[in-house]
């Protein structure tokens, strides 16, 4: 079972390596959205600090929905997904491997570039590290919730837009606590701990429930 997990993970990373543009689209989209805001609202130090948490998180949400329709669509079209259901391994484990690969390719780059974004928005260094931490905790949740929607809309026409509509409302808790933690970190004497603990709870819940929900949705889509 663990072997199947590694095979799928390695396979997805290898496929992404062969088609690098798809990874960079997400990262560039994120960077472009982030850099548009100062142009629109002005580059005043106070304003930027105020909007930074929200802007970063909204951009991260949008960027993560961008790649969701590709999570299962390619495997669905060439028949690989059908075989995943038929191989003697548990489907949720395979799904979890695909989610992890998806996060490594679309979520992790955003986390790694976050310090740069923080500097861009004049955030104090303590807030930058909080932002990196909450993105690290929050983006996997986005991939995992998104996978459920991607599996449900598989094979539908206009599935890409539908995924965004389905998934963005579900991202709200992550947005609220993720952006909240960064805002709070800029004030003296307020602890970010509750926010971080709640995000950790989200990630645990997602790891436990989303592979099963996604696997069930995939089976329905394949019928």
């Amino acid at each position, binding site marked *: 079972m663990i072997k199947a997990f590694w095979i799928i993970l390695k396979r997805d990373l290898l*496929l992404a390596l062969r088609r690098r543009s798809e990874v960079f689209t997400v990262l560039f989209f994120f960077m472009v959205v982030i850099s548009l805001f100062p142009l629109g609202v002005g580059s005043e130090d106070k304003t930027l600090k105020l909007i930074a948490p929200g802007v970063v998180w909204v951009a991260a949400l949008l960027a993560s929905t961008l790649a969701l329709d590709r999570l299962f669509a390619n495997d669905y079209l*060439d028949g690989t997904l059908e075989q995943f259901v*038929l191989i003697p*391994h548990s489907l949720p484990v395979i799904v979890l491997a695909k989610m992890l690969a998806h996060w490594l390719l679309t979520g992790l780059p955003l986390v790694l570039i976050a310090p740069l974004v923080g500097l861009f928005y004049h955030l104090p260094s303590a807030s930058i590290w909080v932002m990196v931490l909450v993105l690290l905790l929050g983006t996997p949740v986005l991939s995992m919730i998104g996978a459920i929607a991607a599996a449900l809309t598989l094979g539908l026409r206009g599935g890409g837009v539908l995924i965004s509509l389905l998934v963005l409302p579900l991202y709200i808790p992550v947005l609220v606590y993720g952006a909240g933690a960064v805002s709070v970190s800029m004030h003296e004497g307020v602890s970010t701990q509750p926010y971080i603990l709640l995000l950790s709870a989200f990630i645990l819940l997602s790891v436990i429930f989303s592979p099963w929900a996604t696997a069930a949705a995939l089976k329905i889509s*394949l019928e």
Partner: protein
Amino acid sequence: MTLEVKKLQCIRGDRELFRELSFSLQEKQLMMLEGRNGSGKTTLLRALCGLYVADQGEILWRGKPIRQQDEAYRRELLYLGHLNAIKADLSVLENLRINSLLAGARVSDDDLMAALDTIGLYAFEDFPTSQLSQGQKRRVALARLLVSKASLWILDEPFVALDVAAVEHLQAIIAKHVEQGGMVILTTHQEVPLTSGKIKRLSLNDHAV
């Protein structure tokens, strides 16, 4: 080792494809599934794999419903559908390696190369599959048959896109599997000559509603 189907009924949308379909298949038997286009051959094969839940009836493997067996049944099953299940961005060898490892076969690269050799893809192993012809892609998918340990093969139109030589070759592979005690169910318009073992025929036209 028996596959038993009892009073199966499948409905697609509001169209009933077949009802009261019963048959059984033992080792050393090959079943040719016949029927006109749209008669539900693929649906039946997918139901046998567990990809599609039949509306009524039971499918038993070794006397137990396949729904309750899950991984135990899937370990003995190899399904090849219309789609080749190969990734265009991976090489021929990578595709075969990943597919057979996931299917639970413990194979070395030498075994895989030998399988590719036999299926007529010698010297193509490092080619990206996107550069292969339709028939060659089909061969990559079929190479899995050679390294598989599964006893029940379910093949949906396996001869499509293959040239005459490859068709003969595949017929021999299927015949060998049946003679060695395997079971094969396939839909095709080609005959598969067997020297031993038994050919069963099932026509879905007889069960149409």
